[in-house]
């Protein structure tokens, strides 16, 4: 009998017991799968240049993309405002998906409502769903703001949010002066980063529309869609406080996605206050930390006379240097010695470890700004980010990547892959292998298929816990990224050298 009450076997060892192996072998006889030889032959072919060429020539099929759809970004950015409930107009299954997706990454609650449109609403439109839905959401959950976005169903049938919300207010679903910002977020345009941009612009428009700015001394900072927001936003605020800058983070999800366990479930926690959001019109500048999450929002901010600037995920030395100098320029505050010391400490660590990092080759995938920031840091360590891939990256992004590569001798053999997916990357890694892969949990299939160690440093991370609670931004964050990469390199080396009498001559105690 395979199972045992004293030492209960989980699925992993259980199915390796002889009874199960025999059973699965019997099952295989009736499955009509291809022969082992045929599978092996085709499997080898999928690693070839021939396969790569066919794979890269795809024009219709997408396989294992590294992007999600607009509303995910919309509900993410809305979660960073005080007591704000996202209301997604359209089919309800989408909302179940966003909630699960965010909960699986953050290991936190994710509260979002849907207008639950069904077939009749597809025919007659979803106005009644909006009227009832806003009333229910407002009454049951007592939010301070309801941020409305759309699923593709509502977009295809052409529901007009502005007039629907007006209609719902006329029917007293919510008080006339209650904040109901909105954004159309069709899933068939852009990706989750586009949705972030659209919803943020919608929220700002709700507070700023028709007003005139009186430029003050504060600056607005937009973090962008970021799975590491919990750690990153807190690090960002520490840096800003260290500099003595007056600031408003436009959408700060760091508390919402990191509530304590003390016996109380907080549906809402932290976030940018509505007052601060309204007052943010008077900022002298708005700085985006991720260009591709904020293009429309920055244009909008400019119409109020604000200066704007955008960065690419401020990670590593140059990335953080840019962050500090830009903030300093925009705010007029000098960069304090304390931060310069942190810079020195990160460089000290990089210098101590440079021998392990120099010449290592990488593939990096994720959102465009993350890939840029990460690749830039790898170049600083003497590594080569050979393959940089963003499924939601544009031609302009690819050009920016090429400029980055050209800025370093370590970029000579590096390529940018815009609009490609992780099945393309599989072919690329089989034909032009690298030492390490940096990305999300989805990369574990590449780790297995291409035998390349995966370092999880971007959203979503489902199969490792709590990484997002620690920052990757700033010099302190850079230290953490450095250690994560080094640990992987050295763990892999230990695993490759741990066979006594075979490989353990290089199983060194000091590395």
């Amino acid at each position: 009998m395979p199972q045992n009450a004293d030492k209960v076997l989980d699925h992993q060892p259980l199915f390796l017991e002889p009874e199960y192996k025999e059973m699965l072998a019997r099952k295989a006889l009736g499955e009509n799968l291809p022969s082992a030889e045929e599978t092996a032959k085709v499997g080898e072919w999928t690693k070839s240049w021939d396969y790569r060429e066919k794979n890269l020539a795809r024009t219709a099929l997408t396989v294992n993309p590294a992007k999600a759809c607009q509303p995910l970004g919309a509900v993410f950015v809305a979660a960073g405002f005080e007591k704000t409930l996202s209301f997604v107009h359209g089919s309800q299954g989408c909302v179940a998906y966003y909630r699960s997706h965010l909960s699986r990454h953050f290991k936190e609650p994710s509260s979002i409502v849907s207008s639950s449109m069904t077939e009749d609403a597809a025919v007659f439109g979803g106005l009644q769903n909006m009227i009832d839905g806003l009333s229910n959401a407002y009454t049951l959950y007592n939010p301070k703001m309801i941020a409305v976005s759309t699923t593709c169903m509502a977009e295809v049938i052409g529901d007009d949010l502005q007039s629907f919300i007006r209609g719902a207010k006329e029917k007293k679903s919510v008080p006339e002066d209650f904040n109901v910002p909105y954004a159309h977020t069709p899933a068939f345009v852009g990706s989750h980063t586009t949705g972030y941009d659209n919803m943020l612009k919608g929220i700002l428009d709700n507070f700023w529309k028709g007003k005139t700015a009186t430029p003050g001394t504060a600056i607005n900072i937009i973090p962008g869609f970021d799975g590491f927001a919990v750690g990153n936003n807190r690090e960002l605020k520490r840096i800003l406080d260290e500099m003595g800058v007056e600031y408003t983070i436009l959408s700060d999800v760091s508390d919402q996605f990191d509530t304590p366990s003390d016996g109380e479930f907080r549906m809402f926690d932290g976030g940018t206050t509505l007052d601060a959001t309204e007052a943010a019109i008077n900022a002298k500048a708005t700085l985006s930390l991720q260009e591709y999450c904020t293009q429309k929002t920055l244009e909008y901010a400019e119409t109020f006379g604000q200066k704007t600037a955008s960065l690419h995920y401020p990670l590593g030395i140059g990335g953080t240097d840019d962050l500090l100098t830009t903030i300093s320029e925009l705010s007029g505050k000098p960069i304090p010695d304390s931060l310069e010391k942190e810079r020195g400490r990160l460089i000290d660590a990089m210098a101590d470890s440079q021998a392990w990092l120099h010449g290592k080759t990488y593939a990096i995938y994720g959102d465009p700004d993350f890939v840029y920031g990460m690749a830039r840091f790898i170049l600083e360590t003497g590594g080569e980010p050979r393959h940089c891939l963003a499924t939601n990256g544009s031609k302009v992004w690819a050009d920016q990547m090429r400029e980055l590569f050209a800025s370093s001798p370590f970029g000579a053999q590096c390529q940018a892959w815009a609009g490609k997916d992780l099945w393309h990357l599989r072919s690329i890694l089989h034909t032009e292998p690298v030492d390490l892969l940096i990305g999300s949990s989805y990369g574990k299939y590449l780790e297995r298929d291409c035998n390349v160690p995966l370092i999880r440093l971007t959203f979503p991370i489902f199969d490792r816990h709590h990484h997002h609670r620690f920052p990757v931004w700033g010099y302190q964050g850079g230290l953490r990224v450095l250690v994560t990469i080094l640990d992987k390199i050295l763990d892999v080396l230990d695993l490759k050298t741990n066979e006594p009498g075979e490989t353990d001559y290089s199983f060194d105690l000091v590395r």
Partner: protein
Amino acid sequence: MSLDEEVPFQNDGELHQKLIAEVLAAYPDKSRKRRQKHLSVAKALDTPEAEAEGLMTECDVKSNIKSIPGVMTVRGCAYAGSKGVVWGPVKDMVHISHGPVGCGQYSWSQRRNYYIGKTGVDTFVTMQFTTDFQEKDIVFGGDKKLEKTIDEIGELFPLAKGISIQSECPIGLIGDDIEAVSRKKHKETGTTIVPVRCEGFRGVSQSLGHHIANDAIRDWVFDKKDVEHEAGPYDVNVIGDYNIGGDAWSSRILLEEIGLKVVGNWSGDATLAEIEKAPKAKLNLIHCYRSMNYICRHMEEKYGMPWLEYNFFGPTQIAMGLRKIAAHFDETIQANAEKVIAKYQVLVDAIIAKYKPRLKGKTVMLYVGGLRPRHVVNAYNDLGMEIAGTGYEFAHGDDYQRTGHYVKDGTLIYDDATSFELEKFIEGIRPDLVGSGVKEKYPVQKMGIPFRQMHSWDYSGPYHGYDGFAIFARDMDLAINNPVWGLFKAPWKKAA
């Protein structure tokens, strides 16, 4: 009921009625009227008719009705029911999420349907195939793109045995003819191509997606090929076991042990061939009634195949199930069933001796999908635990009727519960354990109440069969008896 239970457990039906009244009071009028039909307390049935049928209680709620907008229903959609549940696990087919990128992305590798195969070469379950619709596909239609997609799959995944097209919302709204594309491509290539009209706006939950997916098997798979299969007297199909964490394997091992031959397992670890030859078996054994009863009824009607519901959660139900299944066959099988039950009794006794003292008297609230709100009840009872409340995301009336076989008088019953209701009910009852999904896990845990995900087995499992029961018992113990629940209150707060 074992002898050591001197005082039988009694649910606090009065408290449960009060909680229902309290949550309903919070709704606007129109929604209150609609929600009150979905909430109730199980009432004891002590008529001779009920006793003859094994019915303990009546769970009188309305179900399978549209969710109310804006209340935070936990439900998903028809696509989730078809791609996520029924079709997705069929391992040697490519399942295209047809439409924009999101649906396929969020459901990618999320149900732990275990399978054996070389992923990307001869099997494809943990991959995300999508047509990734762009604006031009919405405006001009996506049929051409679908055709090209099917061609590209043929070129890059030549060992795929078939393709299913899982429609996302826009497909049905823009007037695409995926059936015509399927016919055309099937004619060209000979490959099985299954169009599934599971657009997310159809129906009121995952449930219609299950039904549509079942119908697609009937219409696009059955009787399309000459199936070679030498039928044997002990051939059975297992229907509605998705092999989550290996459930179907820890069930199959028992069925084989009593002498049956499992021809097809639907749809966890299934191949297209297993589905095609299913009508040649003698009996359909159905575990998840909700998601696959439709195809069983069809096979009964068309091929004269009987079907039988069974439950492989916990030793009481497993033994009942094995006997019930064996009764359909000859004395050899029946004798084997008794031998298997006796053999595993040693394991069962050891599990219960170890875990029951740690779990006895603990109360549980469940809120899950297809079959589990009732099917796992006796597994908890086997460990001395009691069910205070249970409910389904997307059940129909026949599910609640069947629930009466499992739950006791006074059990709180909630259909399509909203997050608001669940929180209030859990707060009011303060059970020792909640079993629900990932969206419910973290709010409940923050309230200081132990939790297990009962869709994904919280990344554990299998829970089916005797081998699975050991894991189930261990998991419930580790959830309830972990020291973290005692750390919530800061010591300086205790003094206050």
